[in-house]
């Protein structure tokens, strides 16, 4: 029997990856995330011709709106929040033909039956082949309920096209709740249908870490305990909680940044090379690394962590209030706006190499970077005659994630002139300069990956549980403490205790 001939028109050198037709169902379609991020990202993908013909979106939220009103609302949002791209009215009109709205309360079972009917109609009119991407852009407390509703209405069955569900972090608020959430999701969905989005992994520069490590031959041999002394990861924000005090008070820096984004960065930095670049091969290695993080005993937490909270201070020439004075925040709040942790990875590659992570609000500048501190030269040949300055300046490899994405290597060089005076110099690779093309936003990358079915940059449940396992002892210990907050003024590099923690181990924070 002759096989049906597959398309040979794909030009892998020039074309983008092909995307299957599908309907995206967005829960929380009237929310901030949909308006600011999702819809502009989907429109931009349409602008670039990355979406299949017939691509459709069904928005669902409680607000009563007609299709037309929803289209107008989304049009205004896209025009407002679209970054680095022109807004094309004609293209929008074509894109908006595939935009539908259904008001509904996810607490009401009949909503899901109506959604299933609506989905069938849209599938037929737009020829999407039954492929459906559900995006839960709602309160995390509604995730399980929505997935159960999808399942009860028969919309999770893959008997006509694939069905995938994207959920946003936080995936639980501790290890127990993460496991509970997962158990409820997996009653309805296979793990391969669940796409847990961590937009940090969608950043071009985080992905570039993999290219840097595994696409080059010269760095990987130096990527281990023999050559690396310690690693520092900084994710500093120069702003405060920006009106999200109520939410942030329940989360804190450890849950908001370290448990998810920064431990994923650690995994990307420290994982073993995968045998292939297939989604599960890469995620297996990430998960393995996260499971190798030493789980602190209660008595180890105090020496290896620092919690901080900003008080009033001066930022950018103006006075700002302390966290406890922010709207929605209790005046005696014990929530940390700064966290620093010393993680150890228990495997052969990284034994005894500390990974220092810090993140905080109202730090002096917005910067996210990974600094790999190499060991000093084994012999100080310039010590006697010319001073020992080479020993004080170990090589440093800096992977800058934002704002100036790039890679720098610091080394010492002879200062011109008589004598042997050494001076640190920097060799810079600037991502934006080498590739002047526009980088897709993290949401464009991740949405497209989900439509294509590439879960490489999505977090798997075992990764979520492993990272909760690593931070749970810290959460438990901190919950028993009464910290002397505030302990750093807004605009400073965190509490003094963070500097003291590193100095106890013979290190110092880098000032990016």
């Amino acid at each position, binding site marked *: 029997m002759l096989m*049906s*001939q597959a*398309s*040979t*028109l*794909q*030009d892998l*050198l*020039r*074309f*983008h990856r*092909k995307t299957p037709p599908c309907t995206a169902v967005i829960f929380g379609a009237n929310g901030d995330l949909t308006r600011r991020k999702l819809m502009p990202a989907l429109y931009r993908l*349409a*602008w*670039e*011709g990355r979406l*299949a*013909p*017939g691509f459709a979106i069904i928005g669902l939220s409680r607000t009563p709106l007609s299709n037309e009103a929803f289209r107008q609302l989304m049009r205004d949002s896209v025009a407002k929040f679209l970054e680095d791209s022109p807004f*094309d009215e*004609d*293209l929008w*009109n*074509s894109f908006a*033909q595939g935009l539908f709205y259904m008001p509904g309360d996810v607490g009401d079972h009949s909503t899901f039956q109506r959604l299933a009917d609506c989905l069938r109609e849209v599938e037929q009119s*737009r*020829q999407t082949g039954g492929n459906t991407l559900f995006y839960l852009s709602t309160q995390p407390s509604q995730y399980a309920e929505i997935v159960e509703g999808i399942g009860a209405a028969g919309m999770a069955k893959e008997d006509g096209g694939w069905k995938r569900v994207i959920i946003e972090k936080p995936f639980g608020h501790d290890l127990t709740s993460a496991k509970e959430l997962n158990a409820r999701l997996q009653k309805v969905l296979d793990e391969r249908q669940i796409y847990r989005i961590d937009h940090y992994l969608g950043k071009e520069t985080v992905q570039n870490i993999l290219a840097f490590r595994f696409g080059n031959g010269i760095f990987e041999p130096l990527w281990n305990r023999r050559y690396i002394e310690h690693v520092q990861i900084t994710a500093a924000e120069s702003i405060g909680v920006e009106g999200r005090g109520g939410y942030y008070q329940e989360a804190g820096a450890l849950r908001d940044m370290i448990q998810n984004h920064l431990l994923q960065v650690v995994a990307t930095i420290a994982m073993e090379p995968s045998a292939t670049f297939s989604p599960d091969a890469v995620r297996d290695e990430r998960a393995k690394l996260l499971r190798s993080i030493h789980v602190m005993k209660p008595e180890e937490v105090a020496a290896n962590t620092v919690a901080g909270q900003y008080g009033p201070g001066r930022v950018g020439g103006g006075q700002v209030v302390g966290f406890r004075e922010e709207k929605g925040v209790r005046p005696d709040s014990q929530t940390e706006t700064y966290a620093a942790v010393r993680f150890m990875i228990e495997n052969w590659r990284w034994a005894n190499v500390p990974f220092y992570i810090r993140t905080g609000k109202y730090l002096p500048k917005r910067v996210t970077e990974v600094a790999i501190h190499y060991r000093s030269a084994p012999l100080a040949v310039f010590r006697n005659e010319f001073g020992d300055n080479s020993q004080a300046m170990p090589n440093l490899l800096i992977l800058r994630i934002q*704002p*100036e994405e790039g890679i*720098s290597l610091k080394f010492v060089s002879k200062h011109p002139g008589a004598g042997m005076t050494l001076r640190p110099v*920097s060799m*810079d690779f*600037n991502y*934006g*300069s*080498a*590739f*002047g*093309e526009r980088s897709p936003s993290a949401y464009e990358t991740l949405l497209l990956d989900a439509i294509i079915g590439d879960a490489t940059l999505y977090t798997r449940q075992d990764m979520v549980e492993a990272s909760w396992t690593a931070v749970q002892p810290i959460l438990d210990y901190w919950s028993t403490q009464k910290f002397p907050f505030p302990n750093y003024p807004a605009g400073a590099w965190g509490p003094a205790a963070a500097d003291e923690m590193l100095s106890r181990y013979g290190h110092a924070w880098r000032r*990016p």
Partner: protein
Amino acid sequence: MPAAQAVKPDAILHEISELWNNMTKPQPGEAPEEYSSGSLRACAMTLIVFINDEDDPRALDGTLEAVMRAHPNRAIVVRLKEDGDELESRVSARCWMPVGHHREVCCEEIAITASLNRLVDVPGIVGPLAAPDVPRVVWFRSPRLESAPDISPLLNLTDKIIVDSERPGAPAFADLRVLSQVGHIVADLAWTRLTKIRELVAQLLDGRELGAIGNAFIDFSGTEASPGARYMQAWFRSEIPGIDAALHRIDTAGRGEMKAIRIDPDLNIQLGPNCAEYEIGTLRQRANLPECADCDLLREELNIMTHDGAFERALQRMSVWIPRS
């Protein structure tokens, strides 16, 4: 008769070195600091461009600058003069500040003016000036090379040869088929212009049994189909087995440009300025097809430093090869 001028590559390289020394020298009171000011010298390839001396320098400047931002390169611009006995060089830098960054990025440019009778000297100058260990690409934009006696030393300098058969006076010497057959990596910007349209066609035909497609019509406007229309026909012929792909003149008003693509049984793509309207089955949609400037086309080609199978197959199936005049 005055002695012929000499241009020495070593002297030009020294000039470049001096240029950088001056540019990167800290100003009084300025301490070198991370993320701070200063210039970043960037070079990921050498781009050699042959143009006519009288071509509008501003248009080329804009193109080179846009290309440099995507592919920082050492640009060697050879301006060819019809007459005289001239050979001169000049060195400069192009700098820009990427949005949101604090350090400007700079690339160097070497301009060489050569009369046609000094063309023989150009490979010996351009070769040593090319940046080491990075690809070398030559973009033949000047039709004047057509009358040059032997350009093979120029071709042997490079890893990729780019022409544009849509340009009036596109050099007939560049019979890309021959160059491709002898192993050169070649590109034609007339083909590059088709990428978005080809991608749309591929997406719309995705999942169909290609062998079952009987006919395709490429409607064009003009007395003769443009190279782009011919490439489209050749692409169908090389990629869809058994297809009858025909060029169809709809009027004589245009310059041979494609106006529509119709594929059996139900796909109709109407090409308009910066967009396409297509009908497939009951679905009618609009796709964004922004017009590509030279810089966009070059950026795409500079991303591809290997043999391009789809292009080379189409090239072999081109029905007629008529250089435009």
